[in-house]
């Protein structure tokens, strides 16, 4: 394809300009996090802004003392357990729903919009509604019951959309072939369907885990007496902000990044294996 060279040069310029823009955009979204990371190593007498007054692990050590940030370790444990439960439920529900949506059924439209509503209704509204409802019924809220309920409503649409996309590209003839060879439904699912959709299930789980682990709005009124990590972070915001918060933020962000890396690695391995 012979293309006039002025046009090729023009396209190269557009591409170069947009590449620069992309890098600046990355600076915009990662810059503040990076500044937080650097400041978490602030010297003992330093404050929450630059300049650095020496470099120390002072604020990281402070993070480990229970008296300062409260019951941080158990808050972290609760957040992790909650995130794992949400991950499992999101993965299972998303798969089941997407399998149902492969066929036409009565009420599928309503159900589709109900699932998507979880994405559209602000967390604060659901928290308010569930918290006042439980209060009226005399039931105590707890992170493993009411907060879990709202978290799944939030993560389900993401997992569902992932699984819908997976089944959109799914070759149904493979299942039909297995059925024709006499396999029953469970065998078809276990031997044919499941191995092919496992990467998708991992991706749905990623949404479940990471979104629940960081969720604040859908936890705040419905977690009961015990705090999860985002609630603890929010509580420490109302006190005087110290570099401890940056250490906590850095640790939490690094953990999130690690989890994303693990999920992507597992996804890639499973994806290669299933193709």
């Amino acid at each position, binding site marked *: 394809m012979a293309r006039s060279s002025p046009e090729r040069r023009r396209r190269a310029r557009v591409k170069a300009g947009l590449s620069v823009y992309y890098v600046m955009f990355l600076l915009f979204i990662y810059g503040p996090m990076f500044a937080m990371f650097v400041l978490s190593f602030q010297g003992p007498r330093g404050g929450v802004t630059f300049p650095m007054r020496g470099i120390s692990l002072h604020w990281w050590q402070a993070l480990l003392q229970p008296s300062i940030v409260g019951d941080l370790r158990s808050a972290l444990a609760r957040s992790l357990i909650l995130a794992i439960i949400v991950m499992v439920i999101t993965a299972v529900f998303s798969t089941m729903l997407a399998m149902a949506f492969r066929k036409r059924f009565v009420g599928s439209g309503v159900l589709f919009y*109900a699932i998507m509503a979880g994405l*559209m209704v*602000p967390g604060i509204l659901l928290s*308010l*509604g*569930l918290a006042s409802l439980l209060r*009226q019924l005399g039931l105590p809220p707890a992170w493993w019951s009411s907060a879990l309920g709202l978290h799944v409503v939030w993560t389900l649409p993401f997992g569902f959309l992932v699984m819908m996309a997976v089944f959109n590209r799914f070759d149904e003839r493979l299942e039909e072939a297995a059925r024709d060879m006499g396999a029953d439904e469970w065998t078809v699912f276990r031997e044919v369907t499941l191995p092919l959709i496992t990467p998708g299930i991992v991706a749905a789980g990623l949404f479940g885990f990471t979104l629940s682990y960081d969720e604040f709005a859908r936890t705040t009124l419905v977690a009961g007496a015990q705090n999860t990590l985002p609630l603890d972070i929010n509580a420490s915001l109302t006190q005087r902000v110290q570099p401890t918060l940056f250490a906590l933020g850095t640790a939490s962000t690094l953990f999130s990044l690690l989890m994303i890396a693990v999920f992507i690695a597992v996804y890639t391995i499973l994806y290669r294996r299933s193709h």
Partner: protein
Amino acid sequence: MTAVEPLSARPEVVAPRGLIGDRPLIPIEQAQPRIRRDPGFPVLWLITPATLWLVAFLFLPLLAIFIFSFWKASGHGLSPAFTLENYQNFFAVEGFFDLEHENFLTPSIFLRTLWTTFRFTATVMAICLLLAYPLAYFLAMQVESFKWQLTLFLLVMVPFWTSYLIRAVAWLPMLGRHGLLNEFLMSTGIVDEPVSFLLYSEFSYTMALVQLYVVLAIGPIFFSLAKIDRALLEAARDMGATPFQIFREIILPLSLPGVAIGMIFVFVLLMGEFATAVVVYGGKTSTTGTIILNYYGIANYPFAAVNAIMLMLAMMIGVIVILRLVDIRKEL
């Protein structure tokens, strides 16, 4: 493999022999159920658990808000009633209908807060769109190798999976009086002394919100751009269309559904926003979200519910307006 009944075990159908070959013994409509028309697990089993979950944790809380908004606040809780007083308090202040009163036709603080919330949302949405579109365009149209496309896209999306409170906190060292931005402005000689409008201001609030939510706009726009058939662009080019014409007449219209979906995401999440205002605005402004929390805090559940209903209403109107402007059904 599980054993299935062999063909021979099935009941033999003996068709009467006619003049022209075999005729089916039973009418075709009746015979159909024998052939498995509906393979897979029963739909009812698959949808029941998730449906019950959505009823309990999505439908019931919303229904509760609606019902409680008509109840009365009583000391530490709620008492069943049917009153419109809460709604009246939302709209009207004392002396609203009184010509002589200084508050005549003054909108209430709650209505004004809803308006402020909406104003911020609209500003942030516009900035998000301006930032997200070129980025999505770059990723979808300019990056040729799929591997790079995916990597660069994931790099942009990663913050979505990290704590949004922490990301709001991270703005503090950037924007304070001795923050990086001030240092930068001073070192380049743009200002002589640190400017204070950067933190705890509309500026910091807008910046933080854009950074938090722009990611949600990029995803849908990227997907709708990536789906555009390259042959269309090639054909237009061969027919002599200028790059600008190609963009205006092909790329832009085909990407509008993605733009609409992205804007709906950003819109609904921003309208329900409440935590960022405290972190980077020092709680100087309130959003309808913070009002809801405050009234929940003082155990006035009905009034919190009324604010919630009004927020929902404003959101629905916004979403309907966006859907009116762009038809997204093709995208779903």
